[in-house]
């Protein structure tokens, strides 16, 4: 696996000067994944912050071939690109020895929700590509509406903390498990706070033959009501509280890739985020307890599966 020194020597494939917010979790994820490719790569992105922030015509931050077509179809779009590559290879239209990697990026809205059908189809068909979901837990590009990845209890513009209903009432969808059920060669959860783990997973995913998937925690200062400079710290807290466990499933075997020495209370991650502010009112104590119990249960479930074939 590439060392930090090696990674630092590789080309920067997403240039600076793009218009993503200060403190946005997306650019460090994209830059690290693309660096980990270590070779020619073609990418697509679903409609969303990444697409809008990197491409306002006539500017582009992409130093690689890149396409955006719509919101729900990043996986279908990359299926077409990758199929064209296989056709061109057969016909000798790709220079000898050139191996191109294909990556699709989507937010949680474009992946968990509107894009899940296209994603499932592409995984089942076995295209050779990596899908990276940057999960910031809501439709941030359109102004913080709830998605099926939004954490329990969170205040969003479509699950507001109201006088009767205190924020989102549903537990988030476990997309990584859904992807694993497709029996893909590699799927993992990662976080930019644990950059070496993320880079290693990206490298493994792009080295595998077939469809692979990374679900990556991505902080959003705008939607989380947090400080720009604390994004990586917050991503780290999501991992250390075990809200966002880091694990992988490689050829069917599950491995927890990071076990915090001391599992922190969930409240340490929730407290700095404005979207959970209402949960700290005394009358909402039961919501915090319920949330903590669920995180504990999910973490234990993972520990039980660690090292096992799933």
């Amino acid at each position, binding site marked *: 696996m590439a060392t930090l020194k090696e990674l630092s020597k590789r080309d920067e494939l997403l240039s600076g000067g793009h218009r993503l917010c200060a403190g946005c979790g997306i650019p460090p994820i994209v830059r690290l994944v693309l660096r980990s490719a270590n070779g020619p790569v*073609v990418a697509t992105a679903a409609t969303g912050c990444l697409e809008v922030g990197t*491409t306002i015509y006539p*500017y582009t931050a992409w130093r690689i071939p890149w*396409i955006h077509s719509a919101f729900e179809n990043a996986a*279908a779009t990359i299926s*077409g690109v990758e199929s064209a590559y296989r056709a061109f290879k057969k016909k000798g239209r790709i220079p000898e020895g050139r191996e191109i990697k294909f990556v699709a990026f989507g937010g949680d809205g474009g992946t968990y929700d509107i894009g899940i059908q296209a994603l499932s189809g592409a995984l089942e068909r076995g295209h050779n590509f990596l899908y990276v979901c940057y999960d910031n837990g809501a439709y941030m590009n359109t102004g913080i509406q709830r998605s099926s990845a939004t954490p329990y209890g969170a205040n969003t513009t479509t699950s507001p903390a109201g006088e009767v209903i205190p924020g989102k009432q549903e537990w988030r969808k476990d997309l990584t498990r859904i992807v694993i059920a497709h029996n893909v060669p590699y799927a993992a959860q990662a976080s930019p706070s644990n950059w070496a783990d993320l880079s290693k997973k990206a490298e493994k995913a792009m080295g595998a033959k077939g469809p692979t998937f990374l679900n990556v925690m991505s902080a959003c200062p705008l939607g989380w009501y947090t400080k720009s400079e604390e994004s990586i710290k917050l991503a780290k807290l999501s991992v250390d509280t075990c809200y966002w466990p880091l694990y992988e499933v490689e050829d069917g075997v599950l491995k927890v890739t990071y076990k915090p020495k001391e599992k922190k209370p969930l409240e340490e991650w929730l407290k700095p985020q404005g979207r959970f502010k209402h949960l700290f009112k005394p009358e909402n104590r039961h919501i915090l307890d319920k949330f903590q119990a669920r995180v504990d249960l999910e973490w234990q479930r993972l520990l039980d599966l660690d090292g096992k074939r799933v």
Partner: protein
Amino acid sequence: MAITMTKGQTGLTGNAAIAIAMKQIDPDVCAAYPITPSTAVIEDFSSFVADGKVTTELITVESEHSAMSACIGASAAGARVMTATSSQGLALMWEMLYIASGMRLPIILTNVNRALSAPINIHCDHSDSMGARDAGWIQLYSETVQEAYDNLIQAVRIAEDKNVLLPAMVCFDGFITSHAIENITLLEDEEVKKFVGEYRADRYLLDTDRPSTYGAMSLPDVYIEFKHQQSQAMAGAKDVVVEIGKEFGRKFGRTYGLFDSYRLEDAETAIVILNSAAGTTKVAVDELRKQGKKVGALRPRLFRPFPFKEIAGELSHVKAVAVLDRVDSMSGFGGPLFNEVRSALYDNEKRPRVFSRIYGLGGRDYKVKDALGVFGELEKVVETGKVETLQKYITL
């Protein structure tokens, strides 16, 4: 009536003929999802893939939305790309149709015309492709199996022309043309291969030495310029359609133009109608001509771009025109073909009387007697100089 076949002809359904055309074109990528009545196109083509008769990468997607999305990805990657669909399938592609044309990707789509739900119905009408008429795709309509086959081969050249670079849709009637066996003359594989040539995009995603960004966000400072260029390319496609139609004629003996005129030279009344129903209309024309009536028919082949000047010229001497649509645009003001034809005639010094008749929705038969009925109405309009009913359903 006995079926007669001349030498070199073979009997094929529309779907089988389209699949053969696709085999001969041998596109780089085909992404498709099955839907009645176009399913057999992709079934036949899948056999060609399985038997190694083509080099195509076939993507059996999970929906038509993904079919068009994969076509877009593959086309932007530099591939020659084809698909086929009908009805709800085209409707599900709708979002992506605009993106294909807006990105100037010369994707080729066969649309086997079928009614849109609700009520659900698998039979022919034109509500699917007419619903997509403003999506920025070139639309060619086909009367027969032969024409559907010839149109598909020509569509590749039209779409990929450097001055066009727009996706193209070849339409023909579900079941009537897709499932009925007609006599057809196939071209040799080599002839098709030579005619369509190879597709080489100027820029494409797989050219990793020259990275390009596709699908960038465009704000009010440039969006309208992109659309203006697209509009100009569409308008210019008309001449390319004519050129390619002539070249096809020179090479293979069947010349195609913007429309097909039938006994219009001295006609006083005419029916304008698309696809297979034109054949039925021509039988009615022949019957009335035997009675000495000056009647004719006009069947547009190219609907997008709409050849408004040429059609206005062709109908300039006619006194009354009935435009028959196999779709209702639910505007209360006639079908889409009616609106285009009537609008095209507006600038004529002497304008014929024009009315709209909606026929054959959801596969209802359109018979010679229906055409005769419309010609009867037209005759009355010529006599009185008045159109009593501007829009009406027939074949009820």
